[in-house]
């Protein structure tokens, strides 16, 4: 779907994005993570063709970005706004037309989206008469209109109440089911864990994490499993240490031990296993750890990473 290859962008001699590569697969929700000033917005602006990379390339369905491919991309920036003194439906028709719909089709699509957002009766009202949350929903409609194949969303959930957050999630799921791909940039790590398949994290313009969200979380948790049991397991072969954690036991495994072998031992020794899972660090902890400790991928000599490669940050 989307391929970013060795992309570099500098401003005033400073590389804001430095040799970043990633692949976003069709139909997945892909997270773009990083601390403030990491270069995420610049990378997004290059993906949306607002800025052009100094070197490297960005391909959509194997082709360089052009006017035609641009119509398939919709972007919800973090710093967002709408024409204030314009009726809501006119804003949607305008965006719809820019994405290639006829005025009639754009109007129909706009009204359908407003219906979905429970804003149908506000269609003829000026944007400035809407509350902030309502405006955010209209903004989301401008992204969804024209049924784009790639949605790029920068902090879409900020400022939303739980109901509207749920509504946005449902809409994302619907778009995904319809075949759209989502690139989600957010600092809400719980949303990444909940919604995203894979993630890329950049810091100081360089890639520091790349891979499936599950793998990243597991690798940063170390070689361990989480056990919920009635008692602390003792002297289990392959387990070099046991730590209590949030009502569970974290079993630190020896390098050559596997979770399957440890589970078998636990069952054979008559330990009551209420739950057993490979340990995974919350993504927020991974984020803090990576940024604070300045960890990162070093792909400089080995060429660009592909999505099939495991996250390397945790191996350090």
């Amino acid at each position, binding site marked *: 779907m989307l391929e970013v290859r060795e992309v570099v962008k500098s401003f005033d001699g400073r590389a804001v994005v430095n040799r970043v590569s990633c692949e976003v697969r069709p139909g997945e929700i892909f997270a773009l993570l990083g601390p403030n000033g990491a270069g995420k917005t610049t990378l997004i602006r290059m993906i949306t*063709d607002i800025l052009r990379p100094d070197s490297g390339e960005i391909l959509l369905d194997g082709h360089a970005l052009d*006017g035609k491919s641009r119509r398939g991309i919709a*972007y919800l*920036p973090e710093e967002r706004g709408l024409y*204030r003194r314009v009726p809501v439906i006119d804003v949607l028709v305008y965006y719809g037309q*820019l994405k290639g719909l006829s005025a009639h089709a754009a109007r129909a699509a706009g009204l359908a989206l407003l219906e979905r957002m429970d804003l149908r009766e506000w269609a003829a009202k000026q944007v400035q008469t809407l509350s902030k949350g309502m405006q955010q929903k209209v903004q989301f409609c401008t992204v969804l209109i024209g049924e784009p194949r790639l949605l790029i969303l920068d902090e879409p959930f900020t400022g939303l109440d739980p109901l509207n957050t749920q509504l946005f999630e449902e809409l994302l799921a619907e778009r995904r089911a319809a075949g759209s791909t989502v690139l989600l940039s957010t600092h809400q790590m719980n949303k990444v864990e909940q919604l995203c398949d894979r993630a890329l994290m950049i810091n100081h313009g360089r890639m520091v994490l790349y891979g499936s969200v599950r793998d990243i979380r597991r690798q940063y948790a170390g070689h361990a499993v989480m056990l919920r049991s009635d008692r602390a397991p003792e002297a289990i072969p392959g387990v070099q240490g046991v730590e209590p954690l949030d009502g569970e036991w974290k079993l630190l495994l020896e390098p050559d031990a596997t979770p399957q072998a440890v589970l078998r031992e636990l069952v054979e020794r008559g330990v009551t296993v209420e739950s057993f899972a490979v340990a995974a660090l919350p993504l927020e902890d991974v984020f803090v750890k990576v940024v604070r400790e300045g960890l990162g991928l070093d792909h400089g000599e080995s060429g660009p990473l592909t999505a099939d490669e495991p996250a390397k940050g945790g191996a350090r």
Partner: protein
Amino acid sequence: MRLSWARALIVARREYLTAVRRKAFFFTLIAVPLYFGGVMAIATRGEISGRRESLRALTRLGVVDSSGLYSGATRVIVTRMATDPTSTPEKLETFRTRVEFYPDQASLERALRSEQIPQALVIPADYLETGKLRRYARSSNMFSQGSAVRPIERWLVRNLLADHLDSTRVERAVRPSVAMDLYTLGKDGRFAIKDDRREMLDFMIPFLVAMLLAMCIMVGGQYLLQGLSEEKESRILESLLCALSAEDLLAGKLLGLGAAGFTLVAAWMAAGLALGSPMMAVAQVQLQPELLVLAVAYFLLGYLFYGSLMTGIGAVTNNMREAQQFAMMFSFMNFVPVIVLTSIMAHPDGALAVVLSLLPPTAPTAMMLRLGTPSSSVAPWQIGLSLVLLAGSGWLVLRGAARVFRIGLLMYGKTPSLPEILRWARAGK
């Protein structure tokens, strides 16, 4: 430059409709002509009524004649004045002033103080040699009192010569010429009567075209600044720029807002023509088609130049106030030819006029003024060169503006320095 006309036209349509639907547009459409019309009417009416009041107040004129030249002078001054400049034939109003002689200045001053007379004239003994007179009034208004001078002067001349010349000669001395036609050498090599009224109308059309062009460029530019500042301030641009290129947006804005400015000026022109056409018909004024073609060409190229400039300014500034400060400096260039109007009219083929009509920022207005000045003969190569220079610089400014626009639109908070802007204009994305 990657430009999609389809998307640019969508933007143009939206910008146009948004601009013309605003209350401010309607207000400008109605208020500006009303304002200028009102100011002109008040000024004209004020001047006429001032003169009229002045003559009406001069019911009596006290005279002390120490020279003895006016002992047998007429005791009434009759003045006729056109009180409605728009009426044809002229509508004249007659004012009569009674002349009363006083034996000395003291009695004259007493009469003036007691308001028996509104004004007084003292003719000294040596008047014939020196030509010096003294006029007295209870108060003075610099704008109206002057109207009383000419009737008094005519009374002096008429009565000075009455005993020496016949009445016809006296009348000619008082008013040497009722009409003095001037015959000038025309472009066809023949002397033809110079019709000031016709000539003025002939000049007024290109002058108005030049003024309207300058205003149209200014109004379109203002809309561009306003629209861009609003979009920048409300953070709309980033999501828009994902849907269309900066070039599409720039072209759409230039087209749509230029059309809005043009609509405004065209409406004023139409109203002006409708009101002025009877006068033009009487004077047999005909619009020259080649002049109209050139006016359109200068308008389009001038708008391209200034519109692009305004767009660049709108992109690099953070709000309307800041944008207007920058824009004012450039808008001023557009009006330089109007400021030096008299020099251009006096020497339409002089160095100043030629240079201004070739320089792209001043070319549209200056060339239209030159073409409109009756005594000018603008060489075709100058028109050609002026258009080529304007088109070339317009294209360069457009390209630079598109680059600055693309980068500047997404810059918030800090206004870039001139070297930064120039670097953006050279660099691109």
